[in-house]
């Protein structure tokens, strides 16, 4: 997400992610590590994205919260509404229980490549 999330940048960001919110079962992770200023419009945008994702049986998770964004989410009582992870990788992995089988097998192969066996 951008460094400053105010009314204008929130609208632009929403425009960017809108295609991903309209697919079936969207699984989104927003990286807030760069956010240094987050206001009420930004929080509203996050809630809107989350509600859109839930409507399509998906989810939105937040990752790598910057200290400033964490303070604002705590202030607006919205931090308890999101699943928040320390890193994007952890957030993405949390979706893996819902991945189609083909993708899950690909990830498993990458982690544990098949070893050659002697004939």
């Amino acid at each position, binding site marked *: *997400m*951008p*460094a*400053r999330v*105010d009314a204008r940048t*929130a*609208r632009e*960001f*929403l425009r*960017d*992610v*809108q*295609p*991903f919110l*309209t*697919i*079936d079962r969207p699984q989104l992770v927003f990286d807030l590590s*760069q956010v240094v*200023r987050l*206001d*009420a*419009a930004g929080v*509203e*945008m996050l809630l*809107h994205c989350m509600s*859109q994702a839930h409507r399509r049986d998906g989810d939105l998770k937040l990752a790598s919260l910057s*200290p*400033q964004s*964490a*303070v*604002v989410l*705590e*202030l*607006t*009582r919205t931090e308890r509404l999101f699943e928040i992870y320390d890193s*994007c*990788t952890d957030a*993405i992995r949390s979706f893996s229980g819902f991945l189609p089988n083909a*993708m899950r097998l*690909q*990830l498993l192969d*990458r982690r544990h490549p098949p070893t050659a066996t002697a004939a």
Partner: protein
Amino acid sequence: MTTDIRALLLVPPAAELPEGKALPISPALLDVAGATPLQRMAERLTRQSANAAIALVSANALPQSCVVAPENLEYRLASPRQFWRAAEDVFNEMVEAGAEQVLVISLRQYAEVDIDGLVRFHLERKGQVTQVSHGADVLDIFCVSGSRRNDAAVLFRSHLAEDRGHCQFFHHDGYVRPLATARDLRQFAIDILTLKTETQPAFEQIRPGVWAGPDALIEKGARVLAPAFIGAFAKVRAGAVITRCSAIEHHAEIDCGTVVENSTVLPYSCVGAGLDLAHSVVGTGRIDNLRRNVIAEIADPKLIHYVSPASFGRLRRSAFDFVTYLPRQAWRGLFGTSQPQPVRQEPQPRPASPAGPAREMEPSAEFPANLAVVRRYGHQ
């Protein structure tokens, strides 16, 4: 035989702290439970030995609008570069006016020193310079004989760090609180509200453990749980909760439904509705969150905003809000986009999965290639 004792209270330029940690206003000049540490020290001096007091404040320690002279002492400003020179001049001025002993007190800390005991100790030992010590540390509190101008000069030129070797120490084992950061300020408020200090919250208790200033407004439906402090002209709106040693200073406002827990809201600061403020110091457009050790600048007036201290400014703003209310509502009704607008789409065939196009992107070491990365933001 009475001795002419004067006091010089110093609010020096802010100490060097990590970037952003120092408050924009010196903590000695910020209200804590209704009175600034400067005022509290001045009252203490007035009650005890000192005949007169002068407070010398560094000009960059506070914005212009906060320059209000406390009632019981004379107040002077000095530029940061000339501060210690000005302190030396004030000392000399006091001596020429007849002061026999001068108490030099820096408000980088608040200490409830027994002033009478300090002066007695100084006189009995026929000391030239007596410094107050607290445990293994020394405090920036001195009693200097009026005849020791050179000793005073060395003290001021070293920013109270050095003396000429004639210093004796008066041990103080009472209350001491540094005043540098927001955390110090918050802890000072907690100590005052839990009666750990000799100084007490200003104003009267409206019920046990809750102090409120004149014209403080606590609306019906608001809850204020002891111990807490509500300053003069402060407003606590319906549904708000003030709890756990929170201090709402004068002219601050807590809007409906907001919970303030273990926090200080500085003067003229307004906290928006439905918020949850905990373990923080709020004021001058920022939140110092002490639990996370983070300072967040807040520009959104719906969250936190700062009200002009000038009454004319407030009146003008209220009048402007009143006159423009209907036109603003009409504008919002016609053109406002306060809510993110849902995008209406024609029914379409199911779009391709993001996993498809992502295969064409450069694979990231962090993310599998079959996951789409919408947008990356660099340093902005």
